[in-house]
């Protein structure tokens, strides 16, 4: 299948997981999805150490940073990584979202509380429940269209 060529209005997006997470199907899928929506994706792959993640984002200054994690350490790792990103002057305003399976319990209640915690910690979007992919697409489309989140 032909991918839609990225249009000039498309976003530059970094798709990544975090240091302890070795899963990549989520990253492969997100890259294809975002490219089909007309965006340009840099995929950092599995087990991205904090310093590599921060350095790549600082160097590329993307329009959006997408953290995806499914190994159960996402809550913990995300809270560690976000301040490191925000510590870079270039990335103070860059939207950063997180999604996947972020805890080890799988309990909907716990996830809900934790999602609110991540938003409070400064994430611009948290996508974990059923329908997360559609909600994420809406978020990205609004961002590309310049609609404030």
């Amino acid at each position, binding site marked *: *299948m032909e991918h839609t060529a990225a249009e000039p209005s498309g976003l530059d997006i970094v798709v990544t997981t975090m240091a302890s997470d*070795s899963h990549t199907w989520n990253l492969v899928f997100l890259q294809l999805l975002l490219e089909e929506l007309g965006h340009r994706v840099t995929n950092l*792959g*599995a087990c991205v150490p904090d310093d590599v993640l921060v350095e790549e984002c600082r160097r590329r200054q993307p329009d959006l940073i997408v953290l995806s994690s499914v*190994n159960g350490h996402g809550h913990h790792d995300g809270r560690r990584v976000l301040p490191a990103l925000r510590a870079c002057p270039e990335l103070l305003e860059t939207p950063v979202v997180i999604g996947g399976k972020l805890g080890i*319990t799988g309990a909907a209640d716990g996830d809900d509380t934790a999602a609110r915690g991540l938003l409070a910690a400064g994430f611009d979007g948290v996508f974990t429940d059923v329908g997360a992919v559609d909600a994420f697409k809406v978020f990205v489309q609004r961002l590309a269209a310049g609609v404030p989140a």
Partner: protein
Amino acid sequence: MTAFGAFVARARSQGRLVVQPRMGMSRLDEMRLGLYATRNAAATTVGTLTVDSYTRTGALDEARRAIDDGTALNGYPIASYPPDVTRSLLRGIADEEFPVQVRHGSARPERIVAALLAAGLDATEGGPVSYCLPYSRLPLREAVTSWQRCCELLAAAQEAGAQPHLETFGGCMMGQLCPPSLLIALSVLEGMFFRQHGLRSISLSYAQQTHTGQDEESVAALIRIAADRLPDIDWHIVIYAYMGVYPQSPGGAQLLLDEAARLSVRTGAARLIVKTTAEAHRIPTVEENVRALETAAVVAGEEGRAPRTGIADTGIHEEACALIDAVLDLDADIGRALVRSFAKGRLDVPYCLHPDNAGRARSGLDSSGRLYWTDAGAMPVAGRAGAGRSATGSRELLDALSYVQRTFDERAFRTVAAPLPLSP
């Protein structure tokens, strides 16, 4: 020392399938209860210590901090607890009647291997390719060097009287969507690498894929190739219940595990790594694991009494041999041959993002659910262009990734919804 290979060989000679969970907790009392419950399950079992992902990735300070804080990890931090702690964890549980394997997923596992040996354990798993390319960003060359050192550590323990056992993870690459010929080739090549570096007891993995007939042919091919290429060491076959996107319904998950148990028995595999009915949703509880072990044992027992049918040859054996020979032709040192093969694209794992993987190969499912190459890149195998859908768009990829989930959830639904037979 627990003599993992000898235990499995004994069970196999008695016609019993060995079943094994994935299990790892950071709290000692929970881990001990998990091992105890596995040992006492109504099945022929071996135990598992799965390490947490901080330990796997070498972030031992993070693992240490979690232990100190009392934060639960997603596995047992074997390199952060002192050896005596692990010894007391295992005391009275792990022995020759209940060997325990350490499962870790690490591309550079020296610390883990040293820790397990120090704690009196000697069975573990992985491989220089299978724990590097899919799960890490370590250069393949460095993973090969590290795994060579680990093999040497295990072989040294062998000299000291232990009976270390190492299992390849090459038959499980990416969990799903890797065509069987490459799974077989990598499993055998990692086994040959272990042998070259001194191991004398190994197992070769193969993960259940998308089509039962194709899986039967694949395991038969793996056994035939192992017999040819590893004639002078102890080996057995271990089947992994499906490792991809799992059925969401308890019924679908159970049907898929039943299928894996039957596959193991029909092909003559000796051991099965189970999955539970909770797999699609979260890390399973000990009780769910025990139930999976026990139901798999029942299904295996029933299958052992069923008549055998013939296995068709669609060319998987030939394709796997072509891949293996293409690697071995490059260098007598199997580690170096593997590194050069990936650099040349003679081996190329579909959808693998690692920088040392060529990344040209693509796979898909044909209309009957068999895995095939839509693009074999520079590998010495023929793709079957036009035979089915290639999983190159996000939608097609999701469809292929969720094919087994969909199929087995539907099957479970039909089973429940089927009209009751009329009473006689």
